[in-house]
């Protein structure tokens, strides 16, 4: 891989359901440490693209390269081990588990994935497995503290309000320590005040984790303020790309998505 190849790139990804082309040749690049926004009208293929990247649409063709590895050749569950993390548009997490357990599950990635050996170790309470459990527990406490989830740590995911659930999901993704995070509308379903806090939080997290973000968002002030660059999708293809200030002035984007009356001043 050439040294100047982008950290994450999507190359000519196509997906069709029968005669309907959902994605027709999407190309995009994300550099290490960037926050890249993805906007577009409903049905543009944003979430579908996320599903392709994270492995929930295995009929897709093309290439999705993360740090030189083609993700499309790996199973969905293998991708987190290669550094991919994602959130869902509709959060569920694990309804019958406590937030603490949800976060611990994300932290399993810190130990080698050998189910049979892990089971025997667990059944016998081996020293090694106890070590790992202690480590995971300590790390989970850290994550809980970082995202101020202390009051909810022992509550079941299904008992939480949607906004808190979103935060918990974000905590789980961070616990995975991914190198690339896909966030699917992190502001949907949460209160305005929480949305406003989300932008600074994302920027802080990027600093702390050194992670790269790809973000779908309909909240224009939020996405315009945090993104380094933005891709606009329409009808399963890339319509335009560039820094937020350019995208806001792009005729085609305004036509298809932002609408003529979009107030540029909001984001600046």
């Amino acid at each position, binding site marked *: 891989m050439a040294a100047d190849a982008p950290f994450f790139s999507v190359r000519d990804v196509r997906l069709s359901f029968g005669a309907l082309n959902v994605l027709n040749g999407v190309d995009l690049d994300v550099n290490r440490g960037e926050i890249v926004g993805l906007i577009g009208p409903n049905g543009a293929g944003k979430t579908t693209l996320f599903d392709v990247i*994270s*492995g*929930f649409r295995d009929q897709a063709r093309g290439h999705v390269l993360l740090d030189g590895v083609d993700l499309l050749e790996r*199973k*969905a*569950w*293998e*991708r*987190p*081990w290669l550094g991919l*993390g*994602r959130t*869902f548009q509709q959060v*569920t*997490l*694990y*309804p*019958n*588990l406590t937030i603490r*357990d949800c976060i*611990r*599950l*994300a932290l*399993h*990635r810190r*130990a080698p*994935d050998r*189910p*049979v050996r*892990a*089971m025997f*170790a*667990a*059944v*016998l*309470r081996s020293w090694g*497995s106890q070590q*790992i*459990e202690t480590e*995971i527990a300590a790390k989970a406490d850290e994550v809980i503290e970082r995202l101020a989830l202390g*009051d909810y740590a022992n509550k079941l995911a*299904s008992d939480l309000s949607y906004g808190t659930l979103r935060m918990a999901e974000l905590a*789980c993704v961070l616990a*995975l320590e991914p190198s690339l995070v896909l966030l699917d509308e992190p502001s949907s379903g949460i209160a305005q005040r929480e949305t406003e806090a989300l932008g600074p939080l994302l920027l802080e997290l990027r600093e702390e984790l050194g992670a790269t973000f790809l973000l779908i968002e309909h909240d224009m002030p939020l996405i315009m303020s945090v993104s380094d660059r933005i891709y606009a999708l329409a009808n399963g293809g890339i319509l335009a790309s560039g820094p937020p200030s350019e995208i806001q002035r792009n005729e085609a984007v305004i036509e298809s998505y932002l609408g003529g009356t979009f107030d540029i001043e909001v984001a600046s």
Partner: protein
Amino acid sequence: MSDLGFYLNVAVTGLSVGAVYALFGIGITLIYKATRVPNFAHAAIGTVGAYVFFKLWDQTNLQEPWINLRIPFTGLGWKVDPPGVPLVVALVVALVAVGALGLLVERVVMRPLASAPTLNLIIATVALFSLLVGLSGDLFGQRFEAVPSVFPQGIRSIGEVNFSNDALGTLVVTAVLAVGLAIFFKRAALGVAIRATADSREVARLLGISADRVAGFSWAVGSMLAAVAGILISPNAGLTSFGLANLIVFGFTASLIGGFTSLVLTFAGGLLIGVVTNVASAAPWPEGIASDLLGGQGAPALITMLVVIGLLMARPSFIFKGIRLDEDSGVSFARTATGIQQEDAIRRSLDRAGQLGLLLRDWQLGRWLLAGGAAITLVVVPIIKTSYYSTVLTFGIIGSITALSVVVLTGWTGQISLAPLTFVGIGAYATAIATSSWGFPVPLAVLFAGVATVPFALLLGIPALRLRGFFFALATMAFAFAGPGWLFIQPSIVARSQVDRGWFGTEFVQPIYFTALSCAVLLFMAMRNLRDSRVGRTFFALRDSHSTAQVMGIDPVRYKLLAFATSGFIAGIAGSFTGFLNQDVEGSGFLLFFSLAAVLQTVVSGVGLLFGAVLTGFLFSVIPQLTATPTSGVDQAPVIIGGWLAIVTIIQNPNGIGSFLLRLVRPFDPGERVAWASAEADEVLVADEDEALFDEALVGAPGGR
């Protein structure tokens, strides 16, 4: 008679049997279409209908013509001899009775579950199955009764092929009912309403179709169809509650061939299964392994299993139009809002009365007393009492170990397997073979039973990788049926079904008991360790959300198979002790019915709860033994009560009674009082709002007051 003639005759018998399967299938499809309920109790309802009919009809000559009205647990009761009436009267009474039963089931059991996940519906109908079979056994007797055909005796021949009147009549009745239903769905307003409801419940409701009426009608008619099927098959199959209810497997197979939508395909599917199984049973397979495996008595169960699992795995699109076989990802028994409110309300009122702290303190003390009492009972009673009690307690321990296997697979990993006893059976036969044929010593044989069960459990795990919810349950049911129906009757296995008790010697009861007890304790501790580990947590994750698990890097394949293997190993150990205790391993101990009972017991206590499951597994095994009386045989009251408890649990609090109680005594959190206060404030607010809206509606309504 020529070979061809012979097979044609075999095929004709198959057709008439298949017609009954088709009739069961049509009823199942009708109810599934209209209400989305997979009715595992369908054939059990048919059994009730058949019993009512044959008890009344004056042409029967039953060993037990009376109806037993028993007082549970006492062995006391009355025998009521129903009057003999002509065929038509008996038929009408049976149909009305079963139609009413269907309505009752819909009203009391299914309606409260209208919006429940499919898993809860499965448990509810499985519980109903258990309850009705138990009730039939108690009310109508447990003996195998031979009954005459409802059609006059006689045979018509066309060339070499003989049609008995029974076969002809069955075919004609079934065909008429199928065609009648098809026309009803096409033409009658209610038929169209059912189809509309099946397509989209919401749209149907908007169009003013009453879902309750549609459901009630389907349950009544579906149940009557089941009764007709039961009456038609009894002369062939014999009248027993266990045997007839088991025909559910064939009914589901027919429905599956019809994709749970098409009545025509269901009908054809039933006939096909009837003919193929009958011909396979009679076919001249080469002597030896081929004839053992493929022919004879075992053929129907084997073929059904292969058809069911094959269809579900291959998913041919001409059958499964518009049905998604993995639609259920919610496989956990979630707590319902009412359950949570009840828990909260009880704690709140205790707190108000100043009793909550007291309860929590008493509970801390009480749990130690309970544990101590249990330990003393388990250790002391078998030493001082006769071997009878040790035997009974050993059954209890075996029940507990079986329950552990259900908890791991269903409670933790969310795989609703209806075949736990099949694995227990495999463990028992493995023990017999290992001790008698290979001379394994006891510890090695126990271990071997566990290990030998693992490959079978993995085999059942393969469909679980593609199927969820109802359709996986269906695959496991076919598997559970094929255990005693095919595998355990293989001549090579039956010939080796004697366990050599080895070290346990002639005074075997207490040694077996204490060995089983220690194994149970070890397994319990091992599973508790597992629960609190990475692996246990991963199982929970797969139960709760498949997609979230995958984005967290959990491999569903390896972990699910691991859960199956673990569960199989535990069940195999339970089977090993069953073998040592009984010495003669018999396939009839591992019938589908017992598998279902084992699943239900765990649901009652709380399917994810280790200790609760172990306790109910123990109790449900011990109580029937203790209440059995020499005169009346096994009292079915525990089965009936267990079924009823499972239904109540799944409606009220699917999380189980144990979880409910445990949440009542959870440590007090000061935040709770705050939550109660705000909940009360909300209630007042909502009430006010409702009132305001109501006032507005009255004032604002056109032409209002």
